[in-house]
């Protein structure tokens, strides 16, 4: 950095021109600094989103150079499309099966990590390890493990006398398998977020509880969890946004991933998979219809996020 003397000299020499430059700098450069973000986001984020709305009102098709404006026709079809509702059901089912146990387990793990622990860093790193693994790798490794004839999961079940489960074929069984994949990847991450929040809980609260003679478990229920509510809301909303966009795991769960139908009875086809099927997964290439699905998904995420927010906040206010 320049020393005080040189800058004083510079200021004296610069005079009006320097002052003018400084004013321009102060006025203009902030905009320049935020421009890259808004430019890139505008071209590749905002514009496509708006354009999606427009395309959803047309019968645009990859194979057809001419597209016509069809108004809300795609949406009207969508409302009566049982495959779409099936996908909605699957998506919510898998979301529920994965999120509830995941976040509960994450809370427990965080609670246990929030103790005086030997090899603390080791434990934290180990629970975060799945997060480093890519979705594709998770999907492929677990798909192999959930195989019918030679999968490790069925082997384990066989050891305790449970008959082989055809994980991919059944509706509930495929949901469970997929939930396990989601849980495996995300539980540790959420545990660390909870752990961080737990560590920022003021000590006085615990002390007060300790005076009350609260034991460890009651501390957890009466101090930790209520104090964690904002964080829980945060994780629920993040998992909602992520969970409703589930694609990679179910897409690769299907034998040879044909077009994203999610099994022969579409038993685990999610909304994004259905979008993909209409978009590029089959020779239909119904872009207009796919865009309509995308918008409905945005709507669902917004609605469902709001509902979750309300539900979780409700519990907070009900708590003494």
């Amino acid at each position, binding site marked *: 950095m320049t020393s005080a003397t040189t800058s004083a000299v510079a200021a004296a020499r610069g005079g009006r021109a320097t002052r003018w430059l400084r004013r321009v700098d102060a006025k203009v450069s902030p905009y320049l600094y935020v421009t890259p973000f808004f430019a890139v986001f505008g071209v590749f984020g905002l514009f496509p989103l708006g354009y999606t709305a427009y395309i959803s009102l047309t019968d645009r098709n990859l194979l057809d150079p001419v597209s016509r404006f069809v108004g809300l026709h795609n949406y009207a079809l969508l409302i009566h499309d049982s495959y779409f509702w099936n996908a909605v059901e699957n998506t919510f089912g898998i979301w529920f099966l994965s999120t509830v146990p995941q976040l509960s387990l994450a809370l427990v793990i965080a609670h246990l990590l929030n103790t005086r622990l030997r090899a603390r860093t080791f434990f934290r790193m180990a629970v975060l390890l799945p997060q480093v693994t890519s979705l594709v790798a998770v999907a492929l490794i677990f798909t192999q493990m959930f195989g019918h004839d030679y999968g490790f999961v069925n082997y384990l079940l066989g050891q305790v006398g449970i008959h082989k489960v055809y994980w991919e074929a059944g509706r509930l069984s495929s949901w469970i398998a997929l939930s396990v994949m989601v849980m495996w990847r995300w539980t540790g991450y959420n545990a660390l977020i909870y752990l961080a929040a737990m560590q920022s809980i003021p000590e006085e609260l615990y002390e007060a509880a300790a005076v009350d003679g609260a034991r460890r478990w009651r501390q957890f229920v009466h101090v930790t969890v209520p104090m964690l509510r904002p964080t829980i809301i945060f994780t629920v909303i993040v998992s909602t946004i992520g969970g409703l966009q589930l694609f990679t795991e179910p897409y690769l769960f299907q034998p040879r991933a*044909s*077009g994203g139908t999610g099994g*022969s*009875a579409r038993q685990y086809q999610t909304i994004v998979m259905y979008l993909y099927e209409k978009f590029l997964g*089959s020779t*239909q290439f119904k872009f207009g219809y796919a865009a309509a699905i995308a918008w409905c998904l945005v709507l669902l995420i917004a609605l469902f996020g709001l509902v979750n927010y309300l539900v979780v906040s409700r519990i907070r206010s009900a708590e003494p």
Partner: protein
Amino acid sequence: MNGSSTGRQRRLVAAVLAVAAATTAAWLVAGSAAAAHRDAITLTVDVFGDFGYHDLYKQYEAAHPGITIKEDSEDYAAHHTALAQHLATGAGADDIEAIEVGYIAQFAAQPQNFVDLRQYGAAELKSRYPAWKWDQAVARNGAVIGLGTDVGSLGICYRTDLFRKAGLPTDPSTLGKMWPTWSKFLAVGRTFQKKMGSRIKFIDSGSNLYNAIIGQANPAYYDASGNVIAAGNPKVKAAWNLTMRAIALGEDKGLAAFSNDWNTGFKKGTFATVTCPAWMMGYIQGQAPATKGKWNIAPVPGGGGNWGGSFLAVSKQSQHPAEAADLVKFLTSPASELYVFQHTGNLSSEIPVLKSKAVQSFRNPFFSNAPVGKIFANSALKLKPQILGPHQGDFQTAASNAIQRVEQHKQSPDASWKQFLKDVASAS
């Protein structure tokens, strides 16, 4: 964050260096590979399943220094979907693209995306092919967009050892006489099942049964004026009903064809028959080499019929259309098609090959030395073609899914049939 920040930064630098080193190593590998054929031409061939071309590529590369051939192989439906996408977006197609009969009508309708092989002397090859096979790949404007590879004339592949165990005859012609029709075929299956219990089934997969029956129907999904008639055509419903009966009678193992479990089924011998277009022989030999000599081939019920068969086309996106067209001509030459038949099983669609002594006298040791050449070639020569439409292949996929839904007890036959018709309607 406190005093350990220098240590952290050192670790950060170490990690960045490690990633950089790995990246550089990858660059070197990629770079040296690229440098090796800088001046050479690489021709890419996009197929589905196994076309049995690997040895032929080597032959061709040896005879044409400077040309390297790379093959991509994908699943049936995914392959054709990706091809349609690549053609529509103008990027991503390989030099040579395989097109199956179920999709040929769709692609023959877009000659602007394919090289007209007449430019490279295809016209003089016309006499080799049965007229119907040739015509399937001719666009309305006369452009020849593909040359025929194989046909899927039908037989029944069966396990002689399992038949013997079930007290059934093992001789192909006796069996052929026992099952002149598909319902007689199921009757033989009942005898089999009664003896064998429920672990080993007569039939591998309902969709394979269905596809063979549909392959004999004409018209099937389309009528002569190009209308989709799947819903109203009694022949389609009959094929469906027969498949449902096989399932209801407990003769169907219910494996999804071409799935992992189906592959395993060959190894473990959990089914006794497979409806067998010539190209199916390749799958069986590839899947269960240990069952060599246990298989044989009998005439198919219902007589004749075709399931599958493909074409090779050159996409307009190819940078080397002349070389690609030459490779197509090589791969579809009588010598190549004979080689593929003898080594993989895919049966040539060319008349001179079908009539050749080499084919007519060919016996396959894997299939108990059955005269597979004579069986398949003669039925191919008598083939009557089916009327095709653009979404044939999509319907076939929808039907396979519909049958699987019943096999896996997810839907009743009626509900599944209704959903199948719905899929057909939305695909067309």
